[in-house]
């Protein structure tokens, strides 16, 4: 955050504006008391220093309200608002505001100086990301404030541990100088391998999106068109997966609505139940998909899979549900529920420091996946619950930088269906999505 400087008035060079305001000369002669909320101001000049590629019209639009300031208090508030908004728009890295009396000594005359620091034309970085049991290295080159109106352009190259790689280009532009409303456009190519299902896929796609806020939360509307090229991973790939090889086009419209008020996204705390600081948490997830065209079938890369060390523990990665020659086929609907009791490490080693990142937990999780027959809903739902899989166990959770989560668990699968790949005993998981 920047700082707001206001010059302290000195006795010798007291501006006329201050002299007229409440000066109490009773206590000490040199003490000056100023009521900022009553101090009238007239902004005569606003100087923005440090502009090179940012367009004048954007800055003028943000600065203009300052000219209407009536009191000193209001002026400070408006200057601060302009600074925050310009920073949020991605125009400047840093903005320092200096307020001074105007040089021509006019009555109540002030001038405001914005010292702005623009972003570098081209910026870049290398960072690592962790997704579920997979890590990747991302190389990014970005051009912040590319065309001088808060536009952002970035190029990404991703290299994953499981022979995944891809690149993407993204451009976004705020609309009407509002940092919360923006349009984005992206183009990408991504290659991934899915050994649990025995296929690899190259996605080439483009997407357009519009983000806008409402009083409830932020909305994102996105249209995406993807050309998917699915191929068998090896000669051992089962024929039912191989049959789906080939090119397909997916056009999708997605609406994302998000309200984020979590204090900690990795180890959320939904109410403390016991005073000994155990945390009880129950989560549920589920999904059903259906094709709009009754003749069409759902491609394997769109289906739901279940199982893995952070979802349905006690099973191999995507190890639940129908398999054909070791390749998971997935299903069109699923549900998954998990209950955890978290408590701190026994004897609390490293309390207040490193030890707080670790927690022990006991858990029970259950889930199922299958096909919902829309003509016979009750029987289908019944089936989804009677053939459920469940497991329980305990382990240690480590949360890393509020981003990723590491779990080492001892799991006992209790109900396993035919074709499932259970993984009883010790199981290690790392990832960002979990239940």
């Amino acid at each position, binding site marked *: 955050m920047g700082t707001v400087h206001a010059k302290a008035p000195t006795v010798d060079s007291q501006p006329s504006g201050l002299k007229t305001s409440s000066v109490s000369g009773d206590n000490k002669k040199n003490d000056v008391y100023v009521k900022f909320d009553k101090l009238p101001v007239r902004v005569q000049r606003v100087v923005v220093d440090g502009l090179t590629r940012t367009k004048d019209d954007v800055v003028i639009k943000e600065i203009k309200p300052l000219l209407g300031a009536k009191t000193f208090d209001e002026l400070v508030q408006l200057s601060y608002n302009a600074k925050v908004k310009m920073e949020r728009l991605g125009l400047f890295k840093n903005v320092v505001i200096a307020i001074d009396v105007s040089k021509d000594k006019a009555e109540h005359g002030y001038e405001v100086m914005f010292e702005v620091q623009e972003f570098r034309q081209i910026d870049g970085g290398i960072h690592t990301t962790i997704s579920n049991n997979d890590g990747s290295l991302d190389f990014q080159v970005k051009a912040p404030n590319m065309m001088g109106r808060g536009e952002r352009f970035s190029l990404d190259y991703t290299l994953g541990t499981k022979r995944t790689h891809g690149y993407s280009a993204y451009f976004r532009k705020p609309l009407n100088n509002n940092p919360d409303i923006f349009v984005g456009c992206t183009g990408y190519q991504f290659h991934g391998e899915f050994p649990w299902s025995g296929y690899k896929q190259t996605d080439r796609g483009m997407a357009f999106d519009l983000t806008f806020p409402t009083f409830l939360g932020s909305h994102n509307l996105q249209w995406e068109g993807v050309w998917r090229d*699915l191929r068998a991973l090896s000669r051992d790939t089962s024929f039912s997966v191989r049959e789906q090889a*080939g090119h397909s086009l997916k056009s999708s419209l997605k609406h994302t609505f998000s309200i984020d008020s979590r204090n900690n996204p990795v180890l959320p705390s939904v109410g403390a139940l016991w005073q000994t600081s155990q945390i009880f948490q129950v989560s549920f997830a589920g999904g059903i998909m259906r094709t709009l065209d009754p003749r069409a079938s759902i491609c394997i890369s769109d289906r739901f899979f279940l199982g893995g060390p952070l979802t349905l523990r006690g099973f191999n990665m995507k190890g639940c549900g129908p398999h054909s020659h070791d390749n998971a086929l997935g299903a069109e609907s699923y549900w998954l529920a998990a209950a955890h009791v978290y408590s701190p490490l026994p004897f609390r080693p490293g309390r207040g420091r490193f030890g707080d990142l670790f927690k022990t937990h006991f858990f029970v999780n259950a889930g199922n996946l299958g096909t919902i027959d829309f003509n016979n809903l009750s029987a289908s739902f019944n089936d989804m619950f009677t053939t459920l899989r469940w497991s329980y166990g305990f382990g240690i959770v480590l949360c890393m930088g509020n981003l990723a989560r590491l779990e080492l668990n001892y799991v006992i699968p209790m109900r396993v269906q035919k074709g499932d790949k259970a993984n009883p005993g010790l199981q290690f998981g790392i990832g960002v999505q979990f239940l």
Partner: protein
Amino acid sequence: MSLVVDAVQATIGASEPWPDDVILYQQYQVEQITLPDYAQCLAVETFLHMCGLRFRVEQRTNAEEMSPSGKVPFIQVGPYLVSEFDPVVGFVSTKGFNLSQSLSDTERSEMRAYISMIENILGNAELYMAWLYPDIAAEVTKPRYGCCYPWPLSWILPWRKQREVRARLEANDWASKTCEEVCGEVRTCCQALSERLEKKKYFFGDKPTELDAMVFGHLYTLLTTILPGGHFTAVVQDFDNLAQFCKRIEDSFFKLAFD
């Protein structure tokens, strides 16, 4: 790598008899398949018919992508997938079906020479005509290749395939040939085949061999496919004994199969 896998598969597969549910996969014959692919499919089909093996043809729009080698046709025999002419011949012979058993070593190597001549000359000529001859590529091959995909894939995929074929033909110096030169090559090839066949029923006497299947696959395709210009059809029709040969094989192996 894939050759080793093929060999191992063939050896393992040999211990089992020819199952009932053998399927040959190819693209849709009427709407989709392109000239060079159809010739390859027909050659394999003819070969299997000549061996007297049961199989059925299944048409899939994504047959090319399903194939382990990326080329059509391929056959599914139990858990094994075998694609293209030579591997199929190899696989079938491990099951005890061999059309060239009675040939002498000299005849067998002569047969190999003719087969590779056909693969080289007719195979490349078909690719040239289908993908590089502007009229045929634009009016026939590309629309057919992209027919089962939505726009823009119906445009991208044929374009990509054309680029692939062009690169291949540039590598073996076929791309720079003129249409007349290509027709000349085909004529030379047919001349050689016609002289070898003479008045015989098959190339090596009374019994069909792999070569007969191969020749039929290519020549029948060239004779019956109507393309703008009709260059190849005219060339093949000049050789009476080859045209009769195609008719004869069609009558003896396909009329029966269709009825």
